[in-house]
Each structure stands twice: as C-alpha cells, then as structure tokens.
C-alpha cells in the first residue's frame, strides 16, 4: 500500500543515516526481510524512480513507525539524508517476500555487510522469540561502515566483527570469519544481507558446511512491485531450471544455493527463454 508518512526522528550512526517514519498501515504489515520504496526529490522532482530501502525496525508508536537505515550513494539518498522531523515521506510497502523462519529452535548465524545488517535485527528478534540461538557476523569496509555492532552484542550469543581495513574486529570480510562461527556455534542455518559478492562468498561457505542459507539480494529496481521487469537475476527453480526472476516480488530473499551468482548480469545460455531458443533479439 501507499502511505504518506511523516518523519518522526532522524539520526546519524557512523556512516549511516536513520529515519524513523510514522507509516500506519505499512508498519503493522511489515515482517523481517520486507522493504519499502520511497519517493525522493519532492513533488516536482526530475527523479522518477522510487528508492528501495529495507525496513530496519518496526514500532507500534504513533500508529506504527518504520525505521530506514541508509548510506548516501547518489542524489536520491542525499535528498533523503536532508529530511527533518515532520517532513512528509511517500512510502509504498511492505514489499517483497520476507524471511522464512524455522519452526524449530535452531542455531542461526546472521551475516550482514554495510547497511545490509539493518534488515537482520528484526529477524533476530523473531528468531529469538522462537527460542533460536542467534549469532552475528557484521562487517564493512571500515569501522564506521559496520552497522549495529552494539545492538548485536546485546541480543546475540556472540558477535563477530570484520573490517577490510582492520580498524575494527578481524581484518577481512564477513565470509572469512564465517567458517569458525558456524563451527563454534554448530549453526543450523545462515541468513545474509549485503553486496552481491558478499552473498556469493557467504553462500559458498554455508554450502561447504551443508547448511541452508537465505540471502537478501539487491538489484536495481524501477518499480519494486513486479511490473517493470528490470530487477531480474538468474535463479534455479524447484524443477532445476534457471529463470530470470524478479528480485522485488520473487525475492529479495532467496535460498543462496539457488542464485547463480557467477551469472548475475548475464542471461545464462540454459535459462528459460535465453537467446538461441526461440525468437531472438527483439526489443
């Protein structure tokens, strides 16, 4: 649904901006893994596409609030970073398929890189409420780009931090730290959110340990609701065949081993409808 929300609070956390938005209707429907799309630039803007952002936190205050965490990448997120309390914000959501959660109280490792960590905290709350064990691995390029370390330490059994420059925690990437965390915690499942190459590395580790891994992918999206076909990536279906599926409606959460990470950005020759099959090159 579409809601004109109101910015309640804004804050800065290291390299991240966080906006809490009063968005009744969206807040109570949001489950861990959902995202929203935000109209940026104001009513007469030349920026036509909404920006997709994960929902970090949902609270019942003021009829329902959602918290969005983001870094400034371009003009859209720069405009968002300039929002102040009481500004209106046009949101559509909740969108996408949320995380599947296990029925049994199993041990889960939650792996987040950069702002991708934000979406893992509501998941952690849900898992903990089901009696699961939760351990975090959080990383980023440098200390100021690791999101949520304090909160992770509060809720999880263990929290492992990594930075590529070594300014916080272990030097390296989240996937480098993951094998020992999986081994130490006897993890049954992994959840991961971050850039595509991080997801690929994390999936490879989980597959080595032969445990299921759910990844949240981020593809450039023009609509977020499944009508533009711009957000596709090659995913292997239940039947073993590869299709170009929409990250916004069929995802953004996928089983890691089903995503053909090596082929993202291409049309694999064996995908359904790949060139060479039937009518080619039109459009």
């Amino acid at each position, binding site marked *: 649904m579409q809601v004109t929300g109101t910015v309640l609070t804004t804050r800065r956390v290291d390299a991240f901006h966080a906006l809490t938005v009063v968005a009744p209707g969206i807040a109570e429907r949001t489950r861990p893994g959902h995202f929203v799309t935000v109209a940026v630039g104001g009513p007469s803007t030349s920026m*036509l*596409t*909404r920006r997709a952002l994960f929902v970090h936190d949902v609270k019942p205050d003021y009829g329902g609030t959602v918290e969005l965490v983001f870094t400034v990448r371009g003009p859209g997120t720069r405009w968002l970073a300039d929002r102040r309390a009481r500004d209106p914000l046009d949101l559509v959501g909740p969108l996408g398929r949320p995380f599947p959660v296990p029925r049994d109280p199993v041990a889960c490792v939650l792996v987040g890189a950069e702002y991708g960590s934000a979406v893992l905290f509501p998941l952690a709350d849900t898992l903990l409420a089901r009696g699961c064990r939760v351990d975090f691995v959080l990383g980023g390029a440098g200390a100021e780009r690791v999101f949520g370390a304090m909160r992770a330490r509060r809720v999880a059994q263990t929290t492992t931090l990594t930075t590529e420059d070594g300014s916080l925690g272990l030097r390296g990437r989240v996937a480098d730290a993951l094998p020992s965390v999986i081994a130490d915690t006897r993890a049954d499942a992994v959840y991961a959110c971050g850039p595509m190459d991080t997801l690929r590395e994390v999936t490879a580790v989980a597959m080595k340990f032969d445990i299921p891994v759910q990844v949240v992918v981020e593809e450039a999206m023009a609509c977020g609701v*499944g*009508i533009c*076909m*711009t957000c596709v990536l090659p995913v292997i279906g239940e039947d073993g065949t590869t*299709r170009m599926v929409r990250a916004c409606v069929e995802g953004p959460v996928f089983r890691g081993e089903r995503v053909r990470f090596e082929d993202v950005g291409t049309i694999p020759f064996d995908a359904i*409808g790949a060139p060479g099959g039937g009518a080619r090159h*039109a459009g």
Partner: protein
Amino acid sequence: MPVDMRTFLAHVELATPVLTAAGCAGSGRELAQFFDLHRLGALVTPSVTMAPRAGRPTPRMTETPSGLLNAVGLQGPGIDAFLERDLTWLAQRGIRTIVSIGGGTVAEYSALARRLTDAPGVTAVEVNLACPNLEDRGRVFAREGGAAAEVVASVRSILRGDVPVIAKLSPDVADIVAVARACVDAGADALCMINNPLGMSIDTLTLRPALAAVTGGLSGPAILPLAVRCVWQVHEALPGVPLIGVGGVLSGSDALQLILAGACAVGVGTALFHDPYACLRIERELEDLLQARGFQRLADAVGLAHRPPGSSPRIPLEENTP
C-alpha cells in the same frame, strides 16, 4: 454534472480513456493488489512473443532527467503460458484487456494472431512494431511504412473483424505520418503512439554505458512533448483514426494535452512505477480539468487544439447561461 468519459477504439467502447501502457502493468495481478483493475479503460499486456524470452542482461534500467532508460528486451513467458496463465486470469475476472504482440518476422506476428483468434477476453490486439525485423538486419518494423504495413495487414487478415487491431508506432522515424498512413491503409483500426525513443546513458564512474544493452528506450515526462507532437501530426493528417496517446503522462493535464492533440485514449506507463495508483489519479484529474473547462463529454475535447487560432472556445452554452 460528471463528465461523460466514455470513448471508442473503433467500435469498442471503453468506460474511461485511461489505459495502462504495454509492458508497464505486469500481468495484472501485481497491480490488482493496489486497485480494482475494472476501473481501467483497459489493461494493455506486455508484448507477448511466441517463445518464452529471458530478455536482456542487467543492468536493464537507469534513471535520466525526468525519465527512465530501459532495455528489458521483452522478457516474457511466451504465448502458451501467457494464454493459459495471464490471459485466463484477466478474462475470468472480466478485465478489459488489450493484448500486445511482438515478433521478429511477419510470420511470428501472424502466428501470434492465430493463437489469439479463439482466445477469450481479447478486447483488441496492439501490434508492437518496435521489434527488430530479423529479415531486415534487425531494423525495427516501425521505422518504415512498408514493413509496418506488412505486419498489420497480416494480423488484420487473421483476427476476427470485431477485434480491433491497433498499430503501435515509434517516434524514431523521419515521417511518422507516412508510417501511420501505411498502417491504416493496411487495415489498422486504431494507432497507438509513442513507443520509447532510443536513448543512451554513460556511467561516469565506470566509464561504460549504464545499460548492459548499451542503448535503451526512453520513457517518462522527458518524452511527453515528443508524444504530443506525434499525436498532433497524425491526427492532423488522419483525423478519423482513433489514436491512443502514450508517452510521459504523469498527470491529468499531461493526458489532456494528448487528448487536445487528437488522442481519444491515453496510456500510462512509467508513472505506474512511481505510483501504482497513477491511472486512477490521472483519470480523476482529467475529469476535473474537463469539467472545469465546461466539457460534458470527453469526446468533445479530442483534437480540439487543432481548431484555428481565434475561434471561440467550445464551452457548451448551458454552462454560460445562468
């Protein structure tokens, strides 16, 4: 008094003039979560092809000033799955549906038309002529009257007479009137314009084209003036032909421009990506604008901008007499 918003595409009556644009409304199910699709003049499907198509590699889209460049490459399930899944879903609900078809050869368009002849729930067929002609070094059919007419004639000869054939034209031509006339002479009952003009954007960080396909189709408010010009020129030359105006419609006043230029219906594409409710909002705004200008019927506004300068505005009499 509410404005009479009914309009006609050839003999087919539509309750409202606001349609979705081909390829911008998904299968229908996605938008049905937001509003009742019966409130559309008609839903236009993505261009369906004979075989399933995986489309172009990503990145497929990039934002441009007041616009969007896309290179989706007609990703779709192919005609069999489309008929079985998507069209059946729409037909069962009685949603007015215009089926868009795309092909690489005249034979493919003909085969698609044959598959659609017995399908239930086809209000009209829109022929997307902006597809590369595999028998002409991949140049699109829409770029030249002869190639476009050949496709239209073949589709027209196959479909039942009560199913209007709409030819969808591209603005990337030297003489849009010539292509429009060729399509009408070949039997097109209505014309739709415009499809996306080709554009390109270069990423100044990677120093490479922003789209994997290098070039892409431009859409959104950036192309509204192009659409208004094309509709104007074609209506001037062929005033009796029903036109669907498409391109950059974001508001009721954008829609009104196309109607005043000569369109009797308006397609909304890229605006849906920003606002899933765009069609309903635009229809409401259009009705308000017509009412404020004293129109009782949408039909009275179609092509009105063509009247000579200085001629009195056609405000109906009873609106002026107290």
